[in-house]
């Protein structure tokens, strides 16, 4: 496990992003916490000797999150050395943030990576996906690794009038009377964009943005704008594997959040859920190589596909 110069910091964590999960900050363990609540405290210093049992790697090959196990506890470590400790016997998550991590980044790590992993651990199907919706055209999701262009595409669609549903992590609800999958929109969505993406979408006044820094684009959804649950009309896969059903299913499996990839029952449950999703949802592969000049083309093609379907 990497050793960092750890300084505990209470972050300004947005509350109630996920329906059914609430975040709270406490200074010490609170026995009144209910399952699903999140406790932030900095009392656990992870041991440095272990090696991770699993890692998330982005499209550039950089490790973005390392998974460690200490006894029954999961310790998740970001590339900026923020530690998140999940203890199955407790409803709390311990957060030990690096002193150099901005609050907004910590907020994103929690809402886009750690909480989705917790939700997945509770039996939910969560995909690495950004999602947008339009009253007239329906709800679509872009699925792919970090760096594949999910947030860029979703932001672009929002600039064109779609409403944001989720960025980075998307909660899927499989069971529906008509057998179609649904998604649960987040109460607040903010897209995280690299400087060059931000510039390509939001224009020339942003010339001083750094290509290697992520910027936050917050888009608020008022409660009456988006229903609590939305029919998912189409999934677009952003990787370059084959276009056959088998490759699409494997891409979806590789894009789902699984807290413990070594736990057979968890992996089997996820396999069944993703298989059901692949059967029930329209899944297409999208050729988008993060070339901003193609955004408008991609947008037009997707739009005409959606209009055709209607």
């Amino acid at each position: 496990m990497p050793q960092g110069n750890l300084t505990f910091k209470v972050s300004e964590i947005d509350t109630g992003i996920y329906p059914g999960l609430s975040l709270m900050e406490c200074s010490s363990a609170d026995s009144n916490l209910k399952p699903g609540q999140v406790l932030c405290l900095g009392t656990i210093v992870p041991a440095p000797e272990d090696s991770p049992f699993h890692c998330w790697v982005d499209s550039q090959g950089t490790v973005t999150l390392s998974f460690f196990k200490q006894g029954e506890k999961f310790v998740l470590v970001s590339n900026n050395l923020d530690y998140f400790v999940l203890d199955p016997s407790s409803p709390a998550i311990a957060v030990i943030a690096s002193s150099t991590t901005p609050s907004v980044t910590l907020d994103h790590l929690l809402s886009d990576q750690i909480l989705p992993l917790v939700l997945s651990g509770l039996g939910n199907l969560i995909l690495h996906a950004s999602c947008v919706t339009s009253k007239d055209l329906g709800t679509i999701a872009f699925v792919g690794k970090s760096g594949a262009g999910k947030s860029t595409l979703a932001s672009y669609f929002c600039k064109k009038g779609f409403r944001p549903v989720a960025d980075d992590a998307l909660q899927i609800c499989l069971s529906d009377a008509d057998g179609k999958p649904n998604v649960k929109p987040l109460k607040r969505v903010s897209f995280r964009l690299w400087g060059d993406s931000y510039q390509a979408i939001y224009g020339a006044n942003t010339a001083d943005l750094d290509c290697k820094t992520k910027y936050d684009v917050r888009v608020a959804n008022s409660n009456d704008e988006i229903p609590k649950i939305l029919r998912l009309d189409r999934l677009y896969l952003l990787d370059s594997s084959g276009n056959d059903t088998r490759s699409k299913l494997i891409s979806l499996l590789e894009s789902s959040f699984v807290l413990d990839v070594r736990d057979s029952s968890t992996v089997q449950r996820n396999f069944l859920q993703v298989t059901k999703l692949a059967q029930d949802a329209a899944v297409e592969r999208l050729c988008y190589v993060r070339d901003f000049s193609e955004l408008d083309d991609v947008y037009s093609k997707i739009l005409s596909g959606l209009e055709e379907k209607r």
Partner: protein
Amino acid sequence: MISRDQVVRRSTDQMFSDISQDTPEVVVLNTKNNQYFGLEDVAGRVWQLLAQPLKVSDLVLKIVSEYEVDSPQCEVDILDFLAQLESNGLLIIVPN
């Protein structure tokens, strides 16, 4: 080494999803190491036929009858494929 006279069956350490539409297509999960395998066309068909324990020579006959293929070559290819399934923990040789 698997031979044509042996009986083989799917391992119990797997689960799979048959997503066949026009042609056989299966995704198999090895539940011991959580690896996924995509099997298409003839490979997918072999997997479907292995729903029951099957003698390798009978499996070859079945494939030869369904696909217009040369029997000796088909046997070589199927033995090679079965060996791959076995080495990935997806296939068991049934003892006599």
